[in-house]
């Protein structure tokens, strides 16, 4: 199929009259439209239960919208085959997998990277020591770094992250944010849902800021004072 170059710079992501939620449950929002464009960090904030995680998964094509549509570049996301979808956007869940017995090396091998790419990425996230360890034997923070490395090895223009620091202790959180900032400067687009965004204040890598507020979809160019911002929800 003819497709825009999913592997090149981040394509634009457009939400049209989007309603998100689950079958047999009331929808999480009234229809909104919005857009994500270009490299850097795109933050989605919102209160607990506002639908941040649901939105992230919907944008990544991992669950269908209740109504409305999402465009990846020119293409309707619902029409994109699953293997092509995997070339456009990687995804990192808020909790690392707890039941996988795979070793770190085997997890990364699933992405079939070159050794050089693999080792460089491991270095980038600080996980080079654990190649022989089982994922289930790592702490949450360690496992989450491995999962980030896995997402990076997918080599996509976009990475969606659902609360990447939610289950991490303070030093692991700082390390994760630093890695994400470095990443965003390398030309990747990151869409991330987070409560824990104070670390991003004043950072130029922050490309856009959005919130799912009770009044609808809010977009700003910059994260202002956190206190002002939080009052919007």
């Amino acid at each position: 199929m003819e497709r825009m170059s999913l592997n090149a710079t981040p394509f634009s992501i457009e939400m049209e009259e989007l309603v998100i939620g689950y079958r047999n449950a009331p929808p999480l929002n009234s229809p909104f439209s919005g857009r994500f464009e270009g490299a850097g960090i795109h933050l989605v904030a919102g209160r607990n239960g506002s639908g941040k995680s649901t939105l992230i998964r919907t944008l990544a094509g991992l669950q269908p919208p209740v109504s409305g549509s999402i465009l990846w570049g020119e293409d309707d996301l619902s029409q994109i085959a699953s293997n092509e979808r995997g070339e456009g956007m990687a995804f990192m869940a808020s909790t690392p997998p707890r039941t996988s017995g795979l070793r770190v090396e085997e997890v990364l091998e699933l992405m079939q990277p070159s050794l050089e790419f693999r080792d460089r990425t491991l270095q980038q996230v600080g996980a080079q020591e654990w190649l022989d360890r089982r994922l289930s034997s790592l702490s949450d923070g360690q496992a989450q770094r491995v999962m980030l490395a896995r997402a990076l090895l997918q080599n996509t223009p976009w990475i969606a992250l659902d609360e990447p620091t939610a289950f991490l202790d303070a030093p692991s959180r700082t390390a994760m944010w630093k890695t994400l900032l470095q990443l965003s400067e390398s030309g990747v687009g990151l869409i991330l849902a987070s409560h824990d965004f104070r670390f991003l204040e004043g950072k130029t890598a922050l490309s856009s800021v959005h919130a799912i507020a009770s009044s609808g979809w809010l977009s700003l160019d910059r994260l202002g004072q956190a206190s002002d911002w939080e009052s919007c929800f």
Partner: protein
Amino acid sequence: MAIGVGILIQGALHLAWGPISIQWLNALSTWSNPSTTDSLVFFHVRLPRVLTAMAAGSGLALSGLLLQTWFHNPLAGPSVLGISAGSSLGVAVIILTGLTWGWWGVTTAAVGGGMLTLLLILAVSRRFHGSATLLIFGLMLSYVVGAVVTVLQAEAAQDALQQFVFWGMGTFGQAPLRISGLMLLMVAIAGRMIFLRSRDLDAWTLGSITAQSMGVDAKKLKYSVIGITGVLAGIITAVCGPVAFLGLATPHLVRLVSDERSHRRLIPLTILMGAFIALLADWGVRAPGIDGGGWPLNAVLSLLGGPMVVWVLLRKTWNA
């Protein structure tokens, strides 16, 4: 490797040992003319029994592995989830109502019953949280199906009832040679098919959402798992009766003796281990029965399998 040798040794012993002593060379040399006692015992009793045991063990073990991976649940297995019970219901309807006695009729009903049960579980499993719920659902399903079967039994004719009860005890010793060969072939084909999806299954262990984000087609994988598990468990149940615990316990035995966790390794290891355990369990059936009956297969397997489930429950992690 060790498992493979174990299978060969056990296979040979099963073939050689029995209430009637036979001359191997005599049996093999009369292959074209199976009329001597030796060749009759060899080709019509012992060889089919060994092949059936291997096919049933491998097929159920593979089903167990696939269900455990798909549901992210260490306690999944064809008997625990009620798939074998669904197949039994299919068989009960055919045998007890006296519809038709043909092998194909019974097998089709068993596959259909197992597949329907699996579809039912898949439809509701989305609402389940935690591994115990799935287990309890499977248990309740087995009770309900068991009740329906009991009602059918109460209404059934004497000889049909006798046949059904005998079938329900489970045995590897009822299939003719061509059926046992066919079963083994099906297990091999199924194993090969799902082996080609090893990467998808590995990705699935990272979580269903993460796997899909990696490009795994969840629907395709689901239908592979349903198709393979339903057909294998159904056919095996039709031929051998509802075989308990083999599907659940075998993948855990593999994890116990091996460090491998990638499906590229787990699939062949589980298939071999299933054959090994089934042959092993069949000693428990055959050995006490030298003068006649022997112990029912399901009694032997439950004695082995019950403690196994408790052991898995007591362990903190099932994949470490």
